[in-house]
């Protein structure tokens, strides 16, 4: 069980790492939002699955599940609010053609 949990955690941490690389590599604010999307969806979920497997079926794992669900509902709202603020204040997205 601990080994399976470890595999999930490592997969999740790998995605978080990729997201960090993406934030550094991508050219502008909007495209960086996509990179952070990696960490906040699958990366986070894989970490939580790992923790739930490690914990077994207890109240703690149910609480972890509730946290994961809350993440899924609340996260896109945050991303949307940030990107809309940028869009409405007139930040132009970076494009290949304009380069």
């Amino acid at each position, binding site marked *: 069980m601990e080994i399976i949990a470890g595999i999930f955690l490592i997969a999740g941490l790998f*995605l978080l790492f*990729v*997201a960090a*690389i*993406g934030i550094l*590599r*991508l*050219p*502008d604010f*909007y*495209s960086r*939002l*996509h*990179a952070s*999307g*990696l960490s906040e*969806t*699958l*990366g986070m979920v894989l970490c939580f699955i790992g923790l739930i497997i490690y914990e077994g079926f207890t*109240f703690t794992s*149910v*609480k972890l599940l*509730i946290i994961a669900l809350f993440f*899924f*509902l609340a*996260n*896109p*709202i945050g*991303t*949307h609010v940030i*990107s*809309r603020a*940028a*869009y*409405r204040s007139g930040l132009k*997205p*970076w*494009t*290949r*053609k304009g380069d």
Partner: protein
Amino acid sequence: MMKNNLAMTKNVKGSETKQFIVLSAVLFLLWVLLSGKMEAKLLGMGLAASLFSAWITMSLLRIPSVDRKSVYVAFDFPYVKYIVYWFWLFKEIVKANIDIAKVVLNPKLPINPQIVTFRRPMDNPLAHVTLANSITLTPGTVTVDVEGDLYVIHALTDGAAEGLEGGEGEMMKRVCALFNEEAPKGEEAKENHG
């Protein structure tokens, strides 16, 4: 009590009794799960608190429709279909995650950021929330703005932009079916500001 009068004059879609029962049950379940204690006194307090919360939020959970002609009850939607939709969405999120991870790790960085706009007329604001949230949750696409039925979406790659199919993708169809919305009639505006 403006909101109450508003609800009286317009037609209310959905059952408030059903919402009250479901909301109280969900809140009580959450209470039990978070407290983890089974003493009668604590359970009674939890039940009272969840009933009170469900009652006091009733007027807040009447959401005016997009055309302002009717009012929707927020927590009355097909629950089982909604959960099935989330499972399907999760599968899509996993696929999109792998795609974007590949793009980020590719030394050539094959991105083509673009703004995609489309119209998706739906009456129920909850359908708009679900669709916009789903688009943002799928890596590669972020909902930048929703004004009425006009979606402004930032897509990272050509593949992600094509996946939206100008508002005619599978995700939009599924959300429409979920909330029993009619399919839009022509006049879709698909513009790519490359």
